[in-house]
């Protein structure tokens, strides 16, 4: 954490870039007071944001009796993995985990291929219908999920794809947000590079694969992580399309398990939540830098 990286991923000019609030060294007492107040506020905010997760982790290690204690405890008196044992005995977690990985993985792969290709076309190639296509893709962001939900379900049902991986994956391969992200990034690639490769006689596909994509590594990383996290967590579509247990993804299994378990088995539910959150947490903490940069890219017009 020594050199802070900005939201856009750029290294700052100095570890503490001068900003509106003033100088780096808080020499004057007023600056020192401001620094203290600011950090107190930031830490309170951090506790509010991270506290629930810490509490979830700690409580998943408590026996049910301790979870029900009034007032609640923070640190488990005698930590146990009992909740996790019960959970894995009752529910087929490896299957859900695998399903989540397969579905999120396939969608991510598809997004990387299709969104980068269409992003390149929209950013760098001239063809009739380009503007209309971009308008459609951008406009689709305004369409509420519920508009497409019903016909999409009818379509997938008629294709005979309910309760299949194809039914879980296909509707999300052409992801408008991903196309937009790739286009925004590719606009910054100099045309001269592409032109000179053409002059050198490289074919169009070769230019795309050998010149453009290597330059897009940061955007591809951001898109990959964004896509994977989004569809790992997605919940409503799998809930409706996956009808038998062998096709459940983790969030679906947890949601169905929590219905009717409302007040009885909180320890199991918390353990289940930890299992759902932990993989995402690890991926995010390892790769957050690329990821945050990508999010910021979509916000830059």
């Amino acid at each position: 954490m020594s050199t802070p990286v900005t939201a856009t991923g750029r290294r700052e000019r100095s570890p503490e870039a001068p900003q509106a609030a003033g100088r780096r060294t808080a020499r004057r007492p007023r600056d020192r007071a401001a620094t203290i107040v600011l950090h107190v506020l930031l830490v309170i905010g951090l506790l509010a944001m991270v506290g629930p997760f810490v509490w979830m982790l700690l409580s998943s290690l408590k026996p049910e009796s301790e979870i029900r204690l009034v007032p609640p405890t923070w640190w488990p008196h005698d930590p146990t993995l009992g909740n996790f044992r019960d959970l894995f005995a009752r529910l087929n977690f490896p299957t859900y985990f695998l399903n989540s990985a397969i579905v999120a993985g396939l969608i991510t792969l598809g997004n990387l291929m299709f969104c980068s290709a269409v992003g390149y076309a929209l950013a760098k190639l001239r063809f009739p219908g380009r503007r209309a296509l971009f308008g459609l893709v951008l406009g689709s962001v305004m369409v509420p999920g519920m508009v497409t939900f019903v016909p999409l379900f009818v379509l997938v049902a008629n294709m005979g794809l309910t309760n299949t991986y194809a039914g879980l994956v296909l509707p999300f391969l052409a992801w408008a947000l991903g196309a937009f992200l790739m286009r925004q990034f590719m606009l910054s690639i100099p045309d001269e590079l592409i032109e000179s490769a053409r002059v050198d006689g490289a074919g169009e596909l070769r230019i795309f694969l050998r010149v453009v994509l290597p330059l897009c590594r940061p955007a591809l990383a951001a898109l990959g992580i964004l896509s994977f996290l989004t569809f790992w967590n997605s919940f409503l579509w799998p809930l409706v399309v996956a009808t038998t247990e062998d096709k459940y993804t983790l969030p679906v299994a947890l949601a169905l398990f929590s219905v009717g378990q409302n007040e009885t088995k909180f320890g199991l539910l918390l353990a289940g939540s930890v299992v759902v959150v932990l993989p995402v947490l690890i991926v995010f903490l390892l790769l957050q830098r690329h990821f945050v940069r990508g999010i910021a890219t979509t916000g830059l017009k």
Partner: protein
Amino acid sequence: MTAVASDASNRRGRSGLRLRRAAVGWGFALPFTVLFVVFMAGPVLASLLMSFTDIRSADLRNPLGVNVVGMHNYSRLLHDELFVKAAVNTAIFVFAGVPLTMVAGLAAALGLNSGLTRFRSLFRVGYYLPVVTSIVAISVVWRFLLQPDSGLLNSLLGLVGVDGPNWLFDTRFALPSLIVMAAWRNLGYQMVIFLAGLQAIPQELYEAARIDGATTWQQLRYVTLPALRPTLLFVGVIATIGYLQFFEEPLVMTQGGPLNSTLSVSYHIYNQFGFGNYGYAAAMSYVLFLVIVLMSILWFRLLRSEEGR
């Protein structure tokens, strides 16, 4: 070569080049476009057509049983008490939630962007954590935090002598609870966008303002906020579009209760889909679509009138 011939060959060359360009462009765009038309644009159109019919889930095996009913579905929702209730709840959620989240997200971004701040990455990652976490897992934790007696929130309130309510089972507190939860979930995303916007503001503006003796507050008012206008618009539009589709929180937290006090428009549509009323669900989803488009136009208007000043 005569002038005419060279002209013709030139033209052929030019139109050949244009054709080649079109082929290359569409070659790259086509796979995405086909999937997009089948799974996005097609369903959007199908939904519109469905909304003028009385199609129900039973008609899927018997398409001949579908009747065109014109605007009937659209007039029906005006007399649907649940729809009105859901619309009011959704409006409250948007008008309370969007400003709350934007103010919190901007405050967090300003705090992180200050030159005095240490451990920036730690704060940024921490604040962003709820954004990347499954709503299902979050709902488990929050349901527990909001428990009336063994819940963390009420025991904290008890420390300062406040007797906390039964948050999720009290019609007065259920919707506000979900609004706060949504703000907690989304402020990290907005913070990151705001941070990107803040970092794009030229430092010279602040230096000039400081030389003119502007206080920190004045710098925020006259330098930061005007420069952030495009970012504010972007975040405002995205947040409004998202919050108008308010659905996941009540689905996992309250199932629309107590007494429909957290029923939202999207949730009502989802329920009607569950009952098999496809035509009616499609009509309601188009009304929601229309509201989203209108609200987005409003945001753009707001920005333009501001710029005209």
